């Protein structure tokens, strides 16, 4: 088992001529909750999709648990996308069946218990549920796995504060403590206290990667305040910070 869970070197992803990520070097260890922080369009979603193999890098290398992206890494990763990914006909139980078939670390009874606490009837069609409920079902699906790496793409965007607390509580009480949780968001104030580490992305480059405690100690301010400071300053050269 390699020491770092995520390692990437010179990771670059370009769409046509526009680079969404350019030359990202990053190492993330195990057993942490890491915030992938940056404004919209800074490359957060691109990075997450590269990790789960939905995008292919233009240049550079990317490894999860010492292996290149493929079926082996996909079985370690539990991914919450920024959209609904189920077919029209599916009920929550159909998704649970699918996950049980494909992921050995999926805990079926936990998923059902989470549905119960959400007030969701697992036999109901997903299509007939409200947007918020669908998102919660997907969260239950993702958190019911004992994964090595959870990739949560904007889990708290566009929900009310009560739902936000619920989602964060669900993540905190259900994730596998030996695994790492990578949460992308631009709403830092809400998740700052659950994070171990923060990674700042700006225009496709890593500006800062440090523990939240260190940031607070060194800067004497919250990660959120630092974030606002950095991203308000325009224009600023990327690279070393």
């Amino acid at each position, binding site marked *: 088992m390699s020491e770092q869970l995520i390692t990437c070197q010179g990771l670059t992803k370009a769409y*046509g001529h526009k680079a969404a990520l350019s030359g990202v070097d990053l190492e993330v260890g195990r057993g942490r909750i890491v915030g992938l922080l940056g404004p919209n369009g800074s490359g957060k979603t691109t990075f997450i999709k590269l990790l789960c193999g939905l*995008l292919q890098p233009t240049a550079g290398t990317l490894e999860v648990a010492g292996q290149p992206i493929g079926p*082996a890494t996909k079985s370690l990763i539990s*991914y919450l996308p920024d959209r609904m990914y189920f*077919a029209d006909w599916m009920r929550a139980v159909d998704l649970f069946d699918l996950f049980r078939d*494909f*992921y050995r670390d999926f805990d079926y009874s936990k998923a059902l218990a989470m549905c119960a606490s959400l007030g969701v009837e697992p036999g109901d069609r997903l299509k007939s549920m409200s947007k918020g409920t669908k998102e919660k079902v997907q969260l239950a699906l993702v958190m019911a796995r004992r994964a090595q790496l959870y990739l949560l793409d904007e889990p708290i965007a566009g929900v009310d504060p009560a739902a936000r607390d619920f989602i964060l509580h669900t993540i905190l009480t259900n994730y596998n403590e030996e695994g790492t949780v990578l949460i992308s968001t631009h709403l830092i104030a809400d998740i700052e206290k659950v994070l171990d580490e923060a990674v700042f992305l700006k225009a496709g480059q890593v500006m800062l990667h440090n523990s939240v405690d260190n940031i607070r100690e060194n800067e004497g301010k919250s990660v959120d305040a630092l974030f606002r400071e950095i991203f308000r300053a325009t224009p600023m050269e990327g690279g070393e910070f």
Partner: protein
Amino acid sequence: MLLKLLKYDLRSMWKQFRVIWPAALILGLVNRFIFGAPTIYDGSFSLVVGNYTFAPNGGAFTQWLGVITMFLFFGVFVAMVLVSFIFVITRFYKGLLGDEGYLMHTLPVRSWQLVLSKLVCALVVTVVNAIVGVLALVLMMPLNWTELFDTELWRMILRALAKHPDTLLYFFEFCALFLTVFTLGALVLYLSMSIGHLFSSRRVLMSVVAYFGLNILGSTLNNLINRLGFPRWLAGLPVNSHGELWISIGLTLIPVVLMFLATSWILTHKLNLE
């Protein structure tokens, strides 16, 4: 893993067709009652529903009804082909290159397994479509059903088969050829969509362009092979017509395999779900 994928894809298929298939059969039956005119089996037709006996006789009206029935035959046939065609496209496009692709491509499986599962499912749909189509036609036709199961009729068929035992073999060979050709057709669609996916914008348009491109390429190669004297070569081979059929199937399998590999390769190395 492939079986698990198939389970999922077949379930997905069943949810789409569980209404259409019985509906087609019921429609066939309903048509029989409405237009149940003796166009083919003149005179011998009669049908008893409850206390009513339908025994229409010939005439201009029934001939007119016969034309409508023929249109319906044709309509059912076209509908089934169209449904298969749309199914092949949507299950691949929505299921692997759309939002559902986020689910399928993050499963711990290989791309070729995803493609194969979609392909097998498409074949199943086509075969069941063909069966349902034939059944609907049989139901629709003003035949006397008791005659259809008349043991004398079946005995005749068996006797004919005994005389020409390879008829059955021909039947299976043609089925195999049909399935191979259909697989080729489905893979042309898959590969076209995958090629379209390589572009960063106008993916649908590029898919259509790729589809025509592949078809032109296919017919050009076909012409080339024919001009190089393939039919003469085939005729010169020391095989009977069964052998010729198997050679045709084998030759069709070459582009099938190539296109399957190309589609899987694109989905493995060039996937970009945005």
